[in-house]
């Protein structure tokens, strides 16, 4: 494993110039992933249609990918990227892996190749769940990154299977008698473990060292590594400038998306998120920073704390119960080997 500081000064394959929103966690994640991949191994990236694609692969003005200002003389630092349709990123990555492996097996490719894919939660967990699970099921030796902003952000912030209960989205709007999203999120971490992944993690760059260490582990995994990256979306979650990392941290600590790393044969652990609710930041503090939960909580003028809006007490209690079950679920999954 490389040192955190050593990785921080590497050259990322994600370059300035994307049109991602200022404050987008996806940009921070891709910057960090790009640095980890500057490890002396040729990198191929596949990317499904998503914010991370339409905002970075624009022709001819902005292509925010590539290592260095000019193509490297060193093949190992060259970089290639492929986009196809929403759901295809894991399958594309698997195909590149297979071709590289067959060529290597024939003695036609001497240099190693590392293959990653990037999808949004819409692309990976909704339209692309089939592709995600079957690439894992076939034990493809690739690292699958899923940027989870809990919405179809690229098409205007609609519900996705990862949307937190009671969130207001374009297609689950809050209204009289309608409390926002009423569906519990898909248990995607468990699904990936069950499908046969070698490594499954849920971690954002807010946990910086853990994040880069997990990406490194994923790249060296002897099987499929799936890394879900909680990605606060400034436009879809509707929070103030400069709060991205704070929200990512608070969401993890409060139990909305606890940091979690699991490896086959070794088991896993929940990081920086207590099992008991009393030992965690109140979920209301996380909700209160985002206008997608404006209908659920308000700031108490006396205490300064976020509390349930009048008439939303039962909904907030249900949400707290879901958060607790979410945390308990990950602690139980960590015990699997």
């Amino acid at each position: 494993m490389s040192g955190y500081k050593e990785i921080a000064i590497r050259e990322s394959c994600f370059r300035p110039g994307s049109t991602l929103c200022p404050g987008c966690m996806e940009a921070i994640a891709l910057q960090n992933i790009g640095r980890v991949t500057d490890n002396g191994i040729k990198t191929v990236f596949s990317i499904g249609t998503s914010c991370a694609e339409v905002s970075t692969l624009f022709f001819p003005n902005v292509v925010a990918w590539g290592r260095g200002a000019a193509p490297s003389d060193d093949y190992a630092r060259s970089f290639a990227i492929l986009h196809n349709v929403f759901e295809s990123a894991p399958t594309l990555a698997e195909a590149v892996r297979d071709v590289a492996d067959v060529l290597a097996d024939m003695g036609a490719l001497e240099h190693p190749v590392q293959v990653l894919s990037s999808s949004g939660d819409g692309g990976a967990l909704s339209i692309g769940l089939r592709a995600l699970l079957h690439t894992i099921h076939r034990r493809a030796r690739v690292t699958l990154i899923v940027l989870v902003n809990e919405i179809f952000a690229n098409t205007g912030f609609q519900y996705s299977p990862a949307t937190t209960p009671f969130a207001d989205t374009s297609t689950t709007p809050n209204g009289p008698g309608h409390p926002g999203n009423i569906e519990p999120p898909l248990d995607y971490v468990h699904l990936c473990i069950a499908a046969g992944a070698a490594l499954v993690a849920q971690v954002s760059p807010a946990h910086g060292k853990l994040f880069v260490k997990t990406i490194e582990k994923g790249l060296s995994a002897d099987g499929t590594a799936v890394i879900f990256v909680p990605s606060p979306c400034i436009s879809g979650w509707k929070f103030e400038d400069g709060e991205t990392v704070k929200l990512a941290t608070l969401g993890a600590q409060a139990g909305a998306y606890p940091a979690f790393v699991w490896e086959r044969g070794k088991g896993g652990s929940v990081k920086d998120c207590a099992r008991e609710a009393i030992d965690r930041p109140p979920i209301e503090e996380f909700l209160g920073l985002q206008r997608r939960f404006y209908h659920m909580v308000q700031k108490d003028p006396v205490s300064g704390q976020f509390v349930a809006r009048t008439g939303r007490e039962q909904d907030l209690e249900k949400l707290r119960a879901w958060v607790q079950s979410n945390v308990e679920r990950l602690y139980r999954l960590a015990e699997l080997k």
Partner: protein
Amino acid sequence: MSTLQGPRAPMSHVTTPAGERYDGAIDLSKVRAAHHALYEAREEMTADGNTAAALATLQMWQCVIFAGFPITPSTKYIETIASKIAADPTTKKKVKLLEAEHAVADYLVGAAAACRDLIFPTATSSVGLDHMTETTRSLGASGLGNVMIVNVYRATANFPLCIEGDPSDALAHRDDGFIQICARGKQQIYDTVVQAPCLGMHPEVMTPTMPGYYGIKDSHRNARLVVEPDREIAAFHDRWIRPSELPGLINGDTAFGNCVTSRHFQGFKISQKQRMERVLDVLPKLGADFENYFGRPGLAFFDAVGFPDDGEVDLAVLSMGPDFGTFEAIREAYGKRTGLKVGGIAMRLLTPFPRDAVRHKLQRAKVVLVVNQAHHQGRGHLTLDVADALSDLEYAPRLVSAFAGLGGADVSEPTWERMLDFARSAHEGTPVAPYAFFHEGSLL
């Protein structure tokens, strides 16, 4: 930074319009050397169409991964590949079974982009091709001419489901961007699959190919087949296929599948269309070279019968597929009985439709009977293409449109005679309906 894999000699790289290409990254000679020949000498055998297509791809050294998903009537293609691979304990080639046809198409994108010098074939049918559609339309525009989808024709709609050979799948996918070539007979299937990559990977074409043939009628029925030795196929490919000038993902610093604004979209689409139209120039040369090399007819726009040197016929038939053989069998007798000069053409190249060649062939016919074998919202896929081809003639032949053989039904001799009679009435000046359905010798 230092490489984790130890120091390596610098690799030369070349700047191309699509990014940087690292020429030493992939040693294709090793891939060629890893190929185990299936046939060392020309052999004759009895085979069905799926086996003929499978053998052709197995014999190509550039085919190293065979992705697939079963669907009737194409399934025996991937089964044949799997059995041959399984029978070779030292082969490095792989069968890759995906979870759905859509996944197969996605896989072809990734694999073909990974190395543009390898060929990635699969076979599918009917709703399998429909399931691929989201990605086949991307592939058609991708420039990845090293993808080949063998389409074993079968009706597409499942209300009602019908597994016999009906080219409505192929004809519904005319706009996917693939070069579509219809083959009839096992030898033509084999020869078409051998030639297809030469066309698709031609540097002026760079368009994926979709050779096709009728399900059941050609996929499942046996006939004589001559297979060529692998080394001759490789030698023929060497005449046509050069190492790609554009980089792939593994040997390049490049990007595939970018977004563009509408301003730049125009250029991409014009380029796609221009590459497709280059097929009309390249295909005849390729077909002639194949015939010269192997002694059998190569790719052509169509097969024609019964046209005199001056091209003048009373009645010309235009159709496709193996049922055209039944027409060929009765053509002379029908002509003698009716006193008409009767000719016919069986289409081989469906997309791009060889408009000029069809017009030239049919321009001196008095009546053209177009026999469509697939459901269409109007007068028939082929009818519209022929109407377009003939549209700028000063004295255009009268066009008669028929539907027959839907769902893979045999187009029997009585059915052909009934259709020819229908067209003959138009020749005699009788008004005919815009289109008519025929089955088992009757006008429906």
